[in-house]
């Protein structure tokens, strides 16, 4: 199965424009199963971190307000070709995922 995180980075000078799409159910814990009526348990990303060469450039604390298969986009300065950008998340169940990409 392909990676559950996709990341694309556009480098303009020393500004990196990061776009990331990740698969995650992001269950709020409020939804009910339409067939059984049972509440679908909470299951969402709690921490999402973007690191450039090991240094955190964006830290996101997620909760129930973020919808399924979240898409994140942001820019940061001080980037250069050859840098390694890592995207990693941890969810409330303790599951995690990560992916790396090289800039430029």
């Amino acid at each position, binding site marked *: 199965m*392909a990676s*559950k995180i*996709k990341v694309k980075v556009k480098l303009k000078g020393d500004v990196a424009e990061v776009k990331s799409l990740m698969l995650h159910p992001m269950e709020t814990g409020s939804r009910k199963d339409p067939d059984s009526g049972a509440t679908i348990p909470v299951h969402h990303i709690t921490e999402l971190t973007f690191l450039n060469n090991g240094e955190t450039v964006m830290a996101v604390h997620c909760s129930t307000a973020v*919808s399924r*298969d979240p898409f994140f*986009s942001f820019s940061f300065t001080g980037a250069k070709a050859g840098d390694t950008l890592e995207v990693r998340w941890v969810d409330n169940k303790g599951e995690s995922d990560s992916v790396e990409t090289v800039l430029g």
Partner: protein
Amino acid sequence: MLRPAFCRLLLLCLAAILSLPALAGPEEDREAFRAYFSQRFPDVPLDEYVNGIYALDPKAREQWLDIEQFPPYEFAVEQGEVLFRQAFANGGGYADCFDNGGIGIRQHYPRFDPALGEVVTLELALNRCRTRNGESAYAWDSDELVALSAYMAWTSRGKAIDVEIPDDPNALAAYEAGKRFYYSKRGQLNFACSDCHVTSAGAYVRADHLSASLGHPSHFPVYRSKLGRLISLHSRFYGCVRDVRARPFEEQSEEYRNLEYFLTYMSNGLMVNGPGARK
């Protein structure tokens, strides 16, 4: 020498016969459809209609182009490819059931099967391929079937829609049935498909901006932001029929297959651009 009055009568009759409009066939319908929208929206090139409302609404288009930079349907296309390549328990595969191994052939669907006397959609063909090979059929709205359809659409991106009506009275009847469905009012709200997507294309229904039917089937299956997943064309038909408060028919019912036949024929010549993303 013929009497002048008789000559005039003869000429008049001849003129009348020669100017009789040919009984409109599917090609005439398709040309009239395109001409109608050309006239309604003179600044919109016909090729653009495959982008639905984004061909008509510049602000929505901007947002859509943003989303398309990182298409939400990419995961489904990848999943679809994995599923497509998976062999069945009997060793066979989807490639055995389609021309060209199932790659780059989506633009020819739906097709009319003269032996079965019915319209065969891509989804129907996929499930029949499964059952013929001893696999259980997927539910019509299952993630798996939609992913397979998304992958096959992806392999046909950029190809012109090319749906055929073979020289078979049942084929033409199916087309005509789809056409009749499209133009018939239904439901408690008494709407025909054409009321929203021809007459009121470009207008608003509550907060939704109505797209034109020209180009509609090109981008299915489609990722719906509202649902966070891809849906099939028949799922959309189901929703529309329900929204006008008629009891919806089931996905892959004869009604919807004939409707898909008619609608896709109307979009012949336009580019497949599935899977698409919509709100």
